[in-house]
């Protein structure tokens, strides 16, 4: 069973790696075949939630991931509407994860894609990510929990996937409702059909295998279990090979696509993402998949990420490419990490008293 799981995860990782490079070749920004944080942010911009002119686009990849995961969870019997495990705390944690991701300029998935493109700033981010997961694991093994989820109605479970379908229909039928970037990363995108198809495939494969960027490292720390990490390694290997074939491999810190070389902020940004992901039970990609499987709690976290992205651009918290974060972003990130640590400490202490 272990080998079978690892095999499926390797194949899923390989599919994501290939899809990511193909989407980049077809028009997505560099090392951004997929980026859950960036794409939620672009979608938030398209919906007028923020008005940063360079990052506005309804990303069909996100829509495809949710629909693909929803469909396969129905087929496989994993669609189980449930919720009630601290939704407001999850919203706040999702919000802070997004701030961290936008200071670093990428979610954990894009961090791996950036590594595969030779971007060494992502290696600094990876160190921060591992540190954040390590701190999260200390809380987890001391009893941290956001509480029990209860069963919910099918209507509750279907609400988010149905909203996603509605968004896609509006995007195709009445595009004038949305804002679309004319320059910058938001203006760079693969054709809609290719992006949607890639999203559907990745959503379906990630749902079946429960692929998670944070979970792989977490399981090594907590359980000495190397199953989930195989997906992470496969994505890296395939994007590395794909980038070398496509001629887009460029090793170094300088002049990397949509990134910046401020090491401390790359480290701290991904530290917040790692810690927050462990608290939520999975990275941003995994939150999308769980929300599609009917988790109201993960839907709350995704909502927090979307609102966090809007705040990040309305209040200049997100980093600028090549420059890094401004003072607002630095203050918000430090405050966010303190809030994460406080939530983790209080939820852990409460659990120990009750034990």
């Amino acid at each position: 069973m272990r080998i079978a799981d690892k095999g499926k995860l390797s194949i899923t990782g390989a599919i994501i790696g290939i899809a990511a490079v193909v989407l980049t070749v077809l028009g997505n920004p560099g090392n951004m075949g997929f980026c859950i944080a960036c794409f939620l942010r672009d979608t938030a911009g398209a919906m007028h939630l923020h008005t940063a002119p360079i990052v506005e686009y309804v990303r069909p990849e996100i829509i495809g991931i949710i629909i693909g995961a929803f469909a396969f969870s129905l087929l496989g019997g994993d669609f189980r509407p449930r919720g009630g495990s601290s939704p407001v705390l999850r919203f706040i944690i999702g919000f802070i994860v997004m701030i961290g991701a936008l200071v670093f300029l990428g979610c954990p998935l894009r961090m791996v894609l950036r590594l595969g493109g030779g971007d060494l700033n992502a290696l600094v981010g990876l160190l921060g990510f591992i540190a954040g997961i390590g701190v999260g694991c200390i809380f987890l093994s001391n009893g941290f929990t956001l509480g029990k989820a209860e069963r919910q109605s099918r209507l509750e479970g279907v609400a988010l996937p149905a909203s996603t379908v509605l968004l896609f229909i509006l995007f195709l039928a009445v595009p004038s409702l949305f804002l679309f970037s004319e320059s910058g990363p938001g203006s760079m995108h693969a054709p809609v059909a290719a992006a949607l198809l890639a999203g559907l495939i990745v959503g379906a494969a990630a749902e079946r295998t429960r692929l998670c960027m944070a979970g792989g490292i977490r399981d090594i720390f907590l359980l000495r279990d190397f199953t989930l990490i195989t997906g992470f390694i496969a994505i890296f290997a395939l994007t590395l090979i794909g980038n070398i074939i496509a001629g887009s491999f460029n090793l170094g810190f300088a002049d990397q696509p949509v990134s910046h070389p401020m090491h401390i902020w790359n480290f701290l940004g991904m530290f917040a993402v790692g810690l927050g992901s462990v608290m939520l039970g999975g990275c941003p990609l995994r939150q999308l998949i769980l929300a599609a499987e009917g988790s109201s709690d993960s839907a709350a976290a995704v909502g927090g990420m979307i609102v966090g992205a809007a705040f990040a651009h309305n209040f200049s918290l997100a980093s600028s490419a090549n420059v890094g974060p401004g003072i607002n972003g630095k203050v918000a990130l430090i405050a966010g990490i303190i809030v994460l640590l406080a939530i983790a400490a209080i939820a852990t202490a409460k659990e120990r008293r009750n034990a």
Partner: protein
Amino acid sequence: MKTLDASGYSCPEPVIMTKKALKDSPDGLDVIVDNRASKENVTRYATALGYKVAVEEGSGNWTLRISR
């Protein structure tokens, strides 16, 4: 046989709860989980420690009978 009800919790919490419970009752116990991820993760964890795991499917949940 001791029973640990981990339903409502999502991974990795059921695995950590099982890990702690196995320290108190090293001969084995029953663990109730309500999602496939937890079922597979707890089974994988217990198997890796050398336990035998028998799975009983209930209505919307699984009872994992972990024994030596």
